[in-house]
């Protein structure tokens, strides 16, 4: 572990990589502030750039910097103009915006930055502790367990989709897996489901799909509803001054940060839960355990109400790297895109990553810490200037968002057909969104598809059929867990409904 850590330090502290962290954080903050471009879209746009860099450690450091910057940028626009660019920073706006309206935008931003920094730092330490332990267990896994583990991950994502959404999430996952089978895979050397279309021989491009599923529907929503694309058009972001917080305030938020960083991290580790749930839950928990006077303060500009979601969402972002780096299973849309980027860079995340290329693993952990530091000491003082981007009028902003979406899909592949696929899928994805179909499971299924099929095939070949399911107890156990994860919420919901109806009848 120590050698790996040192190798990681050496990799992370090169001039280029430090520049990447700083650049990534700045770009992320800048774009993350804009409505319509969340971390997923920004990372997807940055992937061709990361691939051009070539070195996987540097590329991943850049992308992690962008990720953290984008989350921070989202918090900034939540606080300044009550327009969260990212779902995970919606809870920050509950108290951040009222505080900014009181003329204390500077304080709100500092609390957010300090909490994010602390959350990210605690998260990075926990990641450094838990990831190697989990990876060493995962090294014992065979392809059949991997297959089962991926099924568990995908089921958990569906199970966390929410009441009444599980079937839809499962269908989206299966659709993603089906889309991944299109084209000439490495496994069989024969084209499948291409319908004779030459452009489909290589399958669907994952960046195109990511753009079509997330960036384009959000841009279409912005066009449809002018109130949604709320920039500072006509509304002043106010003077951002006095970024300091008092010692008294620091003491008040410290326990909140400690609790929420821990809670956020463990929520982030669970596949499908992610930063959004962590931030809302963190906010709710802190409001419930606060004293009566402090509870009244929540929603009106409480600094605890900013510290809780901010530390939780940053710790959760770090937590989501645990399954990605140790098992190669992404728990969220953003980590799924990062997984896609890693595969494009010829790195296969999983327990072997720590053994084969420890410098990549540790450099990423160290750069996460560096990224949080950069956000605190460099981005925070620059916020008054970066916030000027919020004054860009909607009529200019939207064409640019659409243009960057097109560029993201085009640059990597230099194929104009990808752009037509992008628009087509974008319209379909918007229809899915109208009908409340969750889109992240589709992308996760699509990215995990080849890995899942690969492990499934290997297990089938080793055991000459499906015997691996009952001959390997751990595989059976994991698949059983997947079934429980999917069935349990529906069963409980059904029981609750029947009980409610029973009570109604009794009345």
């Amino acid at each position, binding site marked *: 572990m120590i050698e790996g850590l040192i190798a990681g330090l050496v990799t992370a502290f090169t001039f280029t990589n430090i520049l990447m962290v700083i650049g990534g954080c700045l770009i992320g903050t800048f774009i993350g502030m804009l409505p319509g471009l969340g971390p997923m879209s920004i990372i997807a746009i940055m992937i*061709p750039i990361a691939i051009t860099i070539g070195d996987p450690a540097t590329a991943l450091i850049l992308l992690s910097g962008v990720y953290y910057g984008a989350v921070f940028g989202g918090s900034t626009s939540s606080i300044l103009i009550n327009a969260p660019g990212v779902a995970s920073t919606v809870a920050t706006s509950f108290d951040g915006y009222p505080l900014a309206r009181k003329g204390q935008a500077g304080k709100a931003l500092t609390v957010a930055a300090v909490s994010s920094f602390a959350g990210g730092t605690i998260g990075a330490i926990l990641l450094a502790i838990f990831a190697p332990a989990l990876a060493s267990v995962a090294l014992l896994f065979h392809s059949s367990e991997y297959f089962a583990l991926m099924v568990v991950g995908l089921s958990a994502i569906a199970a966390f989709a929410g009441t*009444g959404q599980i079937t839809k999430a499962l*269908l989206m996952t299966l659709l993603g897996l*089906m889309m991944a089978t299109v084209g000439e895979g490495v496994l069989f050397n024969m084209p499948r489901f291409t319908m004779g279309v030459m452009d489909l021989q290589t399958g669907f491009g994952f960046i195109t799909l990511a753009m079509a599923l997330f960036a384009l529907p959000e841009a279409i929503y912005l066009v449809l509803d002018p109130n949604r694309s709320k920039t500072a058009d006509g509304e002043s972001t106010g003077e951002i001054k006095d970024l300091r917080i008092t010692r008294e305030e620091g003491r008040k938020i410290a326990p909140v940060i400690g609790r929420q960083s821990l809670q956020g991290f463990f929520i982030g580790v669970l596949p499908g839960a992610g930063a959004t749930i962590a931030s809302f839950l963190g906010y709710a928990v802190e409001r419930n355990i606060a004293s009566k006077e402090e509870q009244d303060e929540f929603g009106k500009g409480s600094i605890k109400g900013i510290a809780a979601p901010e530390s939780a969402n940053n710790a959760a972002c770090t937590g989501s790297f645990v399954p990605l780096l140790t098992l190669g299973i992404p728990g969220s849309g953003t980590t799924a895109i990062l997984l896609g980027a890693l595969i494009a860079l010829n790195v296969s995340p999983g327990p072997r990553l720590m053994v084969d290329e420890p410098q990549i693993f540790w450099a990423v952990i160290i750069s996460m810490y560096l990224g949080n530091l950069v956000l605190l000491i460099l981005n925070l003082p620059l916020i008054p200037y970066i916030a000027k981007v919020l004054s860009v009028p909607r009529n200019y902003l939207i*064409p640019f968002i659409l243009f960057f979406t097109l560029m993201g899909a085009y640059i990597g592949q*230099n194929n104009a057909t990808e752009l037509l696929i992008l*628009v087509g899928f974008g319209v379909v994805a918007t229809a899915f969104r109208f009908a*409340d179909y969750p889109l992240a499971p589709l992308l996760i299924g699509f990215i995990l598809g080849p890995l*899942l099929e690969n492990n499934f095939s290997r297990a089938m070949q080793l055991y000459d059929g499906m015997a691996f399911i009952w001959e390997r107890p751990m595989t059976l156990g994991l698949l059983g867990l997947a079934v429980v994860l999917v069935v349990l919420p529906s069963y409980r919901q059904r029981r609750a409904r029947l009980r409610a109806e029973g009570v109604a009848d009794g009345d």
Partner: protein
Amino acid sequence: MALDRWIAFIILLICITYAYTAFFTMDGLLPPIMQRSPIWPSSFPKVLSIGAILMSLAILLGVEKAPEKEDTGDITFARLREYKLGQAIILLSLMVAYALLLRPIGFLAATFLFLFLGSFILGERRFVIMGTVSAIAAGTVWWLVDSVLGIFLSPLPLFMIGG
């Protein structure tokens, strides 16, 4: 029928086509040597198609009860006409036009026109600013992608580069 069920119905049709290909047509071209393998190219798709057909049927038949949705102020399909649907459709058509014209008229002209017309469609009428912003953006992005990233983007129309 609600939109989510319509979508489930369309997905069901796609899944049936997918399943038909996986079960009946795909293995026809399989070389004899691969037929002895326990796993065929169609094995995984067969499993997926059964799962997807079952799930789309479950949505279509309303097996899982969704809770009453609160009005979050978000755009809903039922109120779609109250929003700027025309603008969205024209902008999407503009994206299609961009895809089709990118090669023939080159990156610079296509991008300039896209950004200029995009803001025009959204109601901007300050033509000088629109022109300047679009020209600077097109030039800067091309320079960044071409020189900094080293990814080639044909800047000029085909007829000017002899294509």
